[in-house]
């Protein structure tokens, strides 16, 4: 387990992608071949059944360390990670054991179905034989959940580099169905269990943000305008009877969206569509927060299928009749796309992303202001004669997003973050004024620099009312500008309304708490958007 422990330390100490990839490459070069498929399974979230539940693990750790439960909780809120907290509070180990990673994983899996006494004896014995870092890893093996900033894409790139293989081939291979103790690393790399010839996607063509007035783009009739959707960019690949859905992060997400599986029957072989995965109900695009319920889930229940049904708004076709047509002009690709979509028998799930009719930039600017009404975040401008570029290229595609709304609020609660931010108050609750009272309007955590977080942190430490537990009430003094995408009535919130995607735009050190916005300001905004 030593080599794996070293890998984890290396991955945690750097936030540079190149360093992480280098650490992974050297791990996959040096480690025991039997361990490698387990590591890949773990990092891609292929979790084995949990052998012991969290409550028991925690209870045994408290028992063994001899501290009261409240003190364990205080420790946990300072550490921000349960596996690590347990590793730190346990008394020092009296023995040492060195076993390969795959043996630990296999032994843990064998605990399934054993009695609690057997499980406890095994776990306590392991804790008493491992050092702090090894204990932490062992606890993570029990939960099977390693979140250490390694995306599927990064892992795949590292494996591809180590084996001088094509990364989309590796991606398909590791996203396929396999079990870590039934496959060798070599077989996994070769993709013996899948047919990688069918799945490969094209690189996405990306747009830059429009930073000038659209008038500078020239004549309107050289451009196609579409709504810019706020979903997951996706590529749908259908070849030789197999269907693959790739996300923008070049991850395979086919299993997450069963609504789109009909394309396996209906989309002609040798087709690749580009578009946006959205939640679409009764023909209307729903907000991203609704779509979010459907993302990164291993299983999907009925109510999720019902509340957040998936649709695909397609705007380009990259392969048709098994031919790469990316060099054809957009105008021509669009005609082919219209024809392909028209022929689908299942209607209203895969839809053409509409083209916006306009004859002047002023008119388009007016239309852009209505973006929010249809849950769009602005307009895409694409040159009619443009090819489908590889990656980001200036000139042919532009995104012309709407500006977010902003309000000034005051911070009233702070909570410690988790992971990297565990020792700091990083999650804040903001309020606006309602007469003499302050009323909670949003919670947000992103958008401040590390330096600002430290500053806020020391303010919270000095001005907190509570001393125990995770939440601190603070003196309403710090003013923050909150940006958000929309506003809606809400019965669940005390304010009677809810903001969409609130985030900290900036810290208004120039403003005092009595200068913040009022609930009435927000109500007016709500009525004006209804």
């Amino acid at each position, binding site marked *: 387990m030593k080599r794996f422990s070293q890998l984890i330390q290396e991955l*945690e*100490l*750097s*936030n540079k992608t190149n360093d992480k990839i280098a650490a992974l490459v050297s791990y996959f070069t040096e480690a025991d071949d039997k361990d490698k498929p387990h590591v890949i399974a773990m990092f891609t979230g292929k979790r084995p059944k949990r052998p012991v539940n969290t409550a028991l693990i925690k209870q045994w750790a408290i028992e063994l*360390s001899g*501290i*009261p439960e409240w*003190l*364990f909780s*205080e*420790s946990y809120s*300072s*550490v*921000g*990670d349960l596996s*690590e*907290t347990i590793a*730190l*509070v346990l008394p*020092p180990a009296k023995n040492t054991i060195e076993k390969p990673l795959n043996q630990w994983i296999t032994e843990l899996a064998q605990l399934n179905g054993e009695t609690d006494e057997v499980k406890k004896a095994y776990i306590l014995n392991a804790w008493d034989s491992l050092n702090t870092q090894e204990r*932490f890893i062992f606890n993570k093996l029990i939960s099977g959940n390693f979140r250490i900033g390694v995306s599927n894409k990064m892992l795949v790139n590292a494996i591809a580099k180590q084996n001088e293989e094509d990364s989309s081939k590796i991606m398909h291979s590791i996203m396929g169905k396999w079990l870590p103790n039934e496959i060798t690393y070599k077989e996994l790399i070769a993709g013996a269990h899948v047919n990688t010839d069918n799945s490969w996607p094209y690189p996405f063509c990306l747009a830059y943000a429009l930073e000038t007035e659209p008038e500078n783009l020239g004549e309107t009739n050289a451009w196609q305008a579409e709504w810019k959707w706020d979903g997951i960019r996706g590529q749908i690949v259908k070849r030789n009877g197999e269907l693959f859905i790739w996300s923008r992060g070049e991850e395979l997400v086919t299993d997450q969206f069963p609504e789109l599986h009909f394309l396996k029957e209906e989309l002609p072989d040798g087709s690749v569509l580009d578009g946006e995965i959205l939640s679409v109900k009764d023909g209307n695009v729903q907000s991203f927060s609704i779509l979010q319920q459907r993302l990164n889930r291993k299983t999907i229940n009925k109510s999720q299928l019902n509340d957040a049904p998936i649709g695909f708004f397609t705007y380009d076709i990259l392969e048709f009749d098994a031919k790469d047509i990316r060099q054809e002009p957009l105008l021509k690709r669009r005609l082919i796309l219209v024809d392909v979509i028209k022929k689908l028998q299942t209607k209203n799930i895969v839809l053409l992303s509409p083209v916006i009719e306009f004859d002047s930039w002023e008119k388009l600017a007016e239309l852009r202001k209505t973006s929010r009404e249809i849950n769009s975040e602005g307009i895409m401008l694409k040159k009619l004669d443009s090819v489908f570029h590889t990656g980001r290229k200036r000139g042919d595609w532009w995104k012309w997003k709407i500006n977010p709304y902003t309000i000034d609020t005051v911070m009233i609660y702070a909570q410690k973050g988790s*992971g*990297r*931010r*565990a*020792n*700091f108050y990083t999650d804040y609750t903001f309020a606006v004024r309602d007469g003499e009272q302050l009323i909670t309007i949003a919670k947000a955590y992103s958008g401040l620099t*590390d330096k600002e977080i*430290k500053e806020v*942190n*020391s303010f919270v*430490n000095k001005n907190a009312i509570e*001393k*125990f537990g995770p939440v601190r009430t603070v003196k309403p003094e710090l003013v923050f500008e909150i940006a958000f995408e929309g506003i809606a009535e809400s019965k669940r919130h005390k304010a009677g309304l809810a903001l969409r995607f609130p985030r900290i735009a900036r810290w208004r050190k120039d403003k005092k708490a009595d200068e913040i916005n009022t609930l009435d300001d927000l109500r007016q905004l709500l009525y004006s958007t209804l």
Partner: protein
Amino acid sequence: MSLIEFTNRGIYCKQGNFYIDPWHPVDFAVTTHGHADHVKWGNKNYLCHELTKPILKQRYGLENNVQTLPYHKEININGIKLSLFPAGHVIGSSQIRLEYKGEICVVSGDYKVEYDGISTAFEPVKCHTFVSESTFGLPIYTWEQQELIFGQIKNWVKDNNHKGKTSILVAYSLGKAQRLIKNLAGEYPIYVHNSIANLNEGFAEVGIELPETIRITSEIKKDELQKGIVIIPPALADGRWVKSLQQPAIGVCSGWMAVRAGRRWRSADAGFALSDHADWPGLLSAIKATEAEKVFVTHGSTAVFSKYLNEIGINSEEVLTKYGAEDDEIIGEANENPLKEESK
């Protein structure tokens, strides 16, 4: 009547009419040790341990109005018997023992229980009232023996050296820096920042012998630094000078490095949990050894620690002080005096 009271200027002994580590200027200040959160400029008179005197001189320009005492020697101030006992925190750090009519109170300042090879080893002192810090007052903090940590640091330096990286250790100029110098000397030349070199000169004058180090100047070539160990205070860790070195690898030496979030927050290349404060078992053993009837907890995890002490039957109370002001910052174990000279 209690021997001490907590006022808005600091810890006050009414009978003796003096303050211990006051944060506002007073007539007579008894100083536990030389870190900036315990020494304020502008008191009329200072009393401290002999080895704290060169620190007050180097860092704060205090000399003529500083009186000193060796450890264990008792003096009488308005009927109060006052003596100093080693606190093991940094060179010269002292617990202040006060006795009046058989009533004994000990103010610890900052302390650690493990002997670090350079600061006089901590001695528990029996008393009725004990004033303790609690910087690392959570059961997640248990230090490894310093030999193990120095072993890790040496391996790290060796590996950097081999890979053409420059090893930069981030440590407080007073305390941690001397501890590193003492324990790492031998294999590689040690280069130190001005603020550390100045203090070391002060220590040499009072007879504290430290292994040889080289003051960093603009004449020293970068590839020489790459072959040695560079020690700098935290204020410089994110600076331009560090980035200008050959493949800088930064190792932060601080108790906060015991937790992963602390290591990642600093985005250091390595974190070594080497602390000059007592860990959880250290705090508990020190407090039990005093047999105190009442324990005041001044800074760190005050609320949690004093609640726990009460639960295990030790009468305790938390006190609001201005010590450890930097301790909620992940890098800070004590305040650093802003550097007069920036190294180039």
